[in-house]
């Protein structure tokens, strides 16, 4: 297992009332938990992944997500069991949509 920590600049997301969760820690899949972070212009990311040595790919995939979405002011935690970059991108978009959908 490998633990990775990143901080990406990202345009602020509207603050949400509740954390959101998406996905399952199953083979080829991952779960993502998103909740308010401590800096409005930053998306903090902590990844625990079963596959070692993919730090650069994670940085590219999550970095692209943070650049393309309003994900500032969030803390994103990922538990991964070998999801492909496509699945990671899909789940990130899903969990952010759910997080913002919870805004009253």
């Amino acid at each position: 297992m490998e633990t990775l920590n990143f901080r990406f600049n990202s345009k602020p997301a509207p603050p949400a009332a509740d954390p959101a969760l998406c996905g399952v820690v199953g083979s080829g899949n991952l779960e993502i938990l998103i909740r308010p972070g401590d800096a409005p212009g930053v998306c903090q990311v902590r990844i625990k992944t079963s596959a070692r040595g993919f730090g650069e790919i994670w940085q590219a995939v999550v970095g692209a997500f943070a650049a393309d979405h309003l994900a500032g002011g969030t803390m994103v935690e990922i538990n991964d069991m070998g999801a492909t970059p496509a699945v990671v991108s899909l789940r990130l978009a899903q969990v952010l949509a759910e997080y913002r959908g919870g805004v009253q």
Partner: protein
Amino acid sequence: MTRSTRKSWFEATARTRIAGLLDAGSFCEIMPPAESQPSPHLAQLDLPGAFDDGVVIGCGQIEKRPVFVAAQEGQFMGGAVGEIHGAKMVGLLRRAVEEKPAAVVLLIDSGGVRLHEANAGLIAISEIMRAVLDARAAGLPVIALVGGSCGAFGGMGIVAKLCSAIVISEEGRLALSGPEVIETVAGVEEFDARDRALVWRVTGGKHRYLMGDCAALVEDDIPAFRAGAAELLAAWREPEPGIAQLRARQKMLEDRLAAYGDFRDGLQVWAALGVAQPETVPSIDRDSLVALKEGLPT
């Protein structure tokens, strides 16, 4: 209903099952992911955990009746029970004894003990067993729903049979040892785990329903599980634990062992139960099978 309009219980996640089982918007999760920690025992073995440790617990309603639910996530570690997972289920059952909802519903999808935390898992299952019996002794029905990809095996197979009643789908499986374990230890002649049809004739939902080990058989469909659970709850009166019931069960189990103890295939049991064409059982639909069972000699 056609297959294409079904919402498969077998393929759904624990959270999707809960959302479809309970009245819309009624679920309140206890210890949600943001308030919990993945298992440190898995981390010690270099494996990523899940925030909910593979079981989602909380309260909600089924057709306006308040219920507590626990749903195991079969996709995470085979739904197996570790220290946190087990303690969440025990805490929920104990809370139910105090709060007295209409029922506790266990959405079982588990191979049993999580080997990575074997001792903690085994003792946790023993604690779940006692907590189920305590809840039932307090007059609370505990209903098991079995239809996930991991079935109800090992200690969770025992827990399922300690519940007031089981609702199972044709795809559901209920047993103690997995076919793979039996094949590994006793040989492929004893149990060929790759023979899916045989596995279902020995452990599958239709067989368990025909033999009376499960109270209801439903389609592999989330609304069908909801309807099955609602129907059971509406009619269920939890009996006080007493010797008369256990005597009756003892006799039933002894008679059954004497009559069917040498059989090795569901086909033999179904024929002995009075099914005229046992070879058709695997292919007939749920409604026909329920009608067939209701027409069997008693």
